[in-house]
């Protein structure tokens, strides 16, 4: 029995008008997310991963000249065709988002309990008292001690990790079906990162949500997601299960990313190999593969023709000429068990 996907993105294109020309931030992205599933999107900054998810809720910066085409089907409804008012009912209530930097994502002038409660009052119509009580419950759920008193505190009184938990509480307040976490741990200390990831996993299970985890850190994705989408230059260059991508990557970019994840079993003197160069935004026309300029395996064909989507296994697709020729890039050495 094939499940109806919760979220079905079809051929999404997002373009920004900039002084230098038309920027194709997201160029023909398609993927789907099933109910209760965790999907990871990995890529460097500028790959289009954040823009993709912001486009789902149409959260563009004010004054941005952007045009969007394609379809974003959530529970069967195309979010891109909804009016602003209809979209507002989806935001926060059916789809929740956790943002990267909890320091700047929380309003510095409002108590945290209030920032949770306002979602509840807006979407669930709760009274002030009921919303406040529920907010305290949520704070407890995400692990903030003494929620009764701390709900009145301003954000600056909390540590970075706790602020991120509060952000999560805000995002799940109305029990959304889908939670999008955009770099939820990137601004946190390493020790705190693990705690937040564990929290997200637990909440996902308890609330039965789908989770989209966005990160530039493949280690974070590996720890939480079942399926992975690798993005570069506005394309999904590879998609597959976590094991496939980590152990048998088909795309040179994915392979390079795996080499960046430090491994405890790695010999001490083996260096981490960074990917040379910087991602460049795609303005105007760019023939061929977007990764060609930085790819160690690039051939002439890569620079001239758009690479095809090649199925390397069931549910494992790579957008690469190398894959078309049946060649795999060399991955990082993996000990048995794949501990990272």
């Amino acid at each position, binding site marked *: 029995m094939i499940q109806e996907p919760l979220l079905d993105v079809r051929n999404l294109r997002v373009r920004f008008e900039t002084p230098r*020309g038309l920027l194709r931030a997201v160029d023909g992205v398609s993927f789907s997310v099933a109910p209760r599933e965790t999907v990871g999107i990995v890529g460097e900054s500028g790959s289009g991963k954040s823009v993709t998810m912001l486009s789902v809720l149409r959260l563009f910066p004010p004054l941005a000249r952007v045009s969007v*085409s394609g379809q974003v089907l959530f529970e069967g409804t195309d979010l891109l065709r909804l009016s602003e008012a209809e979209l507002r009912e989806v935001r926060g209530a059916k789809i929740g988002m956790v943002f990267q930097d909890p320091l700047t994502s929380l309003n510095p002038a409002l108590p945290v309990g209030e920032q949770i409660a306002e979602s509840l009052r807006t979407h669930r119509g709760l009274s002030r008292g009921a919303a406040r009580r529920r907010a305290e419950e949520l704070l407890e759920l995400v692990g903030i001690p003494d929620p009764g008193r701390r709900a009145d505190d301003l954000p600056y009184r909390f540590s970075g990790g706790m602020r991120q938990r509060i952000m999560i509480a805000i995002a799940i307040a109305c029990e959304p079906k889908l939670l999008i976490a955009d770099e939820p741990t990137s601004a946190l200390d390493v020790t705190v990162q693990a705690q937040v990831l564990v929290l997200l996993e637990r909440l996902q299970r308890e609330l039965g949500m789908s989770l989209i985890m966005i990160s530039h850190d493949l280690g974070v994705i590996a720890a939480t997601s079942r399926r992975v989408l690798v993005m570069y230059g506005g394309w999904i260059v590879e998609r597959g299960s976590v094991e496939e991508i980590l152990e048998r990557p088909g795309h040179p970019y994915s392979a390079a990313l795996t080499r960046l994840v430090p491994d405890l079993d790695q010999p001490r003197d083996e260096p981490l190999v960074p990917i040379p160069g910087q991602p460049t935004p795609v303005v105007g026309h760019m023939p061929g593969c977007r990764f060609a300029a930085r790819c160690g395996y690039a051939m002439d064909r890569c620079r001239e023709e758009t690479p095809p989507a090649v199925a390397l296994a069931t549910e494992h697709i790579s957008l690469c000429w190398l894959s078309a020729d049946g060649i795999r890039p060399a991955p990082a050495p993996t000990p048995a068990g794949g501990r990272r």
Partner: protein
Amino acid sequence: MLDARLGRIEDVEEARALARQGTLSRAGDLFWPAVIVALVLLALTGDALAPYSPTAQDVGARLLPPFATSGRGFHLLGTDPLGRDLLSTMIAGTRLSLFIGATATFIGLVIGVGLGMAAGYYGGAVDRLVMRLAEAQTAMPMFLVAILFLVVLGPSVFNVIVLLPALVWPAFARLVRAETLRLRETLYVEAAVATGCTGPQILWAHILPNVAPRVAVLTVIEVGHVMLAEAGLSFLGIGVQPPDVTWGLLIARGRPYLAVAWWLVTMPGVLLGLAVLAFNMLARRFEVASGSAA
């Protein structure tokens, strides 16, 4: 669909976006600079372009409204109480209005940038002194001080040009000081110091080029302010004196006839407003393009 720069155009959305970015926007960018260029040209060549001599009186053609015709010919903007063609007098006023605006702003710029760099770079007592002066300047009712100044020294073009820089130098000084403070900490300035460059050398070669863009934007804005201030002083009779003519003076000249000949007051004001508007819009374009505003 194919576009030379983009290869395949994916869909209607892209086509629309491209159209928006196309020629129409380029033309829009040129409009206000064109206005300024036109005004400058007018200032330089005005006498030749004016339909009549600005001083030619014709009592038989007094106080004619715009689009009227007299014995001499067509008067686009009407005539004044002495029969002088308004358009011609306005053109004649362009030169001095722009000249005073530009000169006074330039002097203020030199003073402000110089003091600002000194304050930012050397800090300490120099900084405190400059900032105190700037504060005192902005806290004073400049207009009233200007009146006193011009009464004591006598109103004239020269005195106005001496006085008006006082209005703008604090803004330049503050901007340049802030930028200098920021730049002082950069690596290449430290490197320059390490290789033995002297203060003035560093200021001239390193800091000045980097503050120049923002100073340029501020200059454009301040020219507008100075022109408005000069118009105010001349309007009150303590600025430019006849036979010199600026737009402010023209407004004053038309004031007694406001009820019967509204164009005498309105037209010079419109021209002045247009000039200042052009400067302001130009400054805004710079700011939007550089991303420092919306």
